[in-house]
């Protein structure tokens, strides 16, 4: 059972404090995501959606509650250990792409492997393979500035998948793309999902969200599960 749960959040709270003012972004969220699920997280801005995504991606830690990723409790981990978790278990796709402009595509893709301690030859081989998987085999030496938005987003997907993560976490991946490119990107997500990976997609776009198996709506720091197969208890 534990092996099939990629993500398990139990009563997770996140409070931001700025001076005397305290703001509770997440107010006790419990959530489980299974291996191979395709989940869309939606909600209006300010709902706590981004906070949830940051916690899921181990970019931020919860104020209280428990978070397990691939069976490991990460809720009390310090930054160096979290870096390891991100490196091994999570692949990120950002709305802003976040590619390093000074490097060619394949260098961008191999970057997570550098931090994972993979040797140069192996890195390059895997980076080129990952780029070929997203249909950019002929663009590996292009710099981000020489690629279209859709192509850049495909580079980030290759970068996210190159380490073989348990979880692909995408934050508004189509937010900066025209509709054609957006469709291409979403079909890549579909394929990744069919290959058996767990995909969590954060979006405010209902049409995008509907492609997922399950839709989770975040409102005022709490979640409402709109899944077709209702697995998770909404508080």
């Amino acid at each position, binding site marked *: 059972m534990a092996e099939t749960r990629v993500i398990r959040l139990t009563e997770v709270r996140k409070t931001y404090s700025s001076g005397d003012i305290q703001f509770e972004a997440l107010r006790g969220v419990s959530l489980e995501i299974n291996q191979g699920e395709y989940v869309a997280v939606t909600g209006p801005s300010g709902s706590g959606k981004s906070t949830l995504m940051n916690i899921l*991606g181990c*970019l*931020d830690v919860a104020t209280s509650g428990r978070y397990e990723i691939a069976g490991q409790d990460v809720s009390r981990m310090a930054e*160096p250990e979290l*870096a390891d978790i*991100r*490196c091994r278990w999570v692949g990120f796709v950002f709305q802003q792409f976040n590619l390093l402009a000074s490097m060619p595509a394949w260098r961008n893709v191999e970057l997570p492997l*550098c931090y994972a*301690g993979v040797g140069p030859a192996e890195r390059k081989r895997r980076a080129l393979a990952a780029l070929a998987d997203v249909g950019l085999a002929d663009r590996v030496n292009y710099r981000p500035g020489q690629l279209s938005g859709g192509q850049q987003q495909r580079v980030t997907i290759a970068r996210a998948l190159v*380490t073989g993560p348990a979880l692909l976490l995408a934050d508004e991946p189509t937010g900066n793309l025209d509709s054609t490119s957006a469709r291409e990107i979403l079909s890549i997500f579909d394929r990744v999902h069919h290959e058996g990976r767990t995909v969590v997609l954060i979006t405010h776009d209902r049409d995008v969200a509907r492609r997922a198996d399950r839709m989770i709506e975040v409102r005022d720091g709490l979640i409402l599960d709109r899944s077709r197969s209702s697995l998770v208890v909404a508080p």
Partner: protein
Amino acid sequence: MSWAETIRTGLAAIRSHATRSVLTVVGILIGIAAVILTVGLGLGTQKDVSESISSLGSNLLIIRPGSAVSLEGVRGGFGSLASLTMDDAAALGSSTAAPDIAGVAPEASTGVSLENGETNWTTTVTGTTVAWPLVRWRGLLQGEFFSQSDAAAMANVVVLGSETAQELFGTAWAVGRSLTIDSVTYEVIGVLAEQGSSGNTNLDDLAVVPMETYVANISPTTAAVQTIYLQATSQATLSAAYQEAETLLLNLHGITEAGSADFSISSQDALVSTATAVYRTLTVLLVAIAAIALLVGGIGVMNIMLVSVTERTREIGLRKALGAKPNAIRRQFLVEATTLGLVGGVLGAGLGVAGGLALPGVLGSSIVISWSAVFLALAVAIGIGLVFGVYPATRAAKLAPVDALREE
């Protein structure tokens, strides 16, 4: 992330903001070159001074007559008494009584006019002994110094300073020519090599004759010796030679108390140590200025690194999201800062050494390149990169990935 990878990333970052990097490097470069040059200049000046002092004879003791006291009790200056004689000089030359004295050159001088036909030139003529070139460290440009037999024969021979020869004959190559002093004709048998000047004494404008000739022809009225120069056998025996000379002269002059001696003995040692102290102070001052230049360079490195961290906040966030540990980020920025320091250091050392080789020709003062200063300056340059890189690197390492990614 391996070191090779870290260094490659650091270099790429430096290249990506080339102008700023170059300016930072120039700052360090100037600091390092300044340190090397100022230390070199200080050492060079020190060397020049001690050389010019030792050219006077580093083992030299100078005996001058004491001061005369008039009947009214007014004390004259040193040297006003005619208390030294050729006998004193001869006694000091005895190897049994004064074994640590290698040579004795008594001198008596007076101003005379030298004539070569229509040309005449007023200079100092000095009567001395054959030991004079040895004791006064003088070499000959041409010809030879007078011999013992010239002296014994009271020969009318003269050795000229190079400038004197130039003035009289229009050339320094004057051996074999003759000149007259007070209508007595002398043959020029040697010309002294150039020595420059010591204080306000021009060491190249003089005429030297045997003491016997001097007494017989030039200044018969005063038989007194004005100065006796002594050469100790070595620097180490200088004080022994001093003791021997003092004891001997006190005996010869029948004086029991050293305090009432009618002569004084001095050495160049005091002069050397004063000059050395002055130049050491000067060097410390110059190095302090150079150190400030280095500090400014270091702050330049810190500044560019802080700018670099701020500018690349998003990149740092991304790298962290992709699995970079705080240490990897810190290392990347330290490598960057250290590289700037190292490049500035190497170029600065190069410039400093090149300047040290080229400048003496321009400035006329020598620069001694101290290799220990070069290596120290290099180490300092790298250290500057490290030390002033630590704060920005730590700031980068501490950035929370989520905040860093949110940065626009």
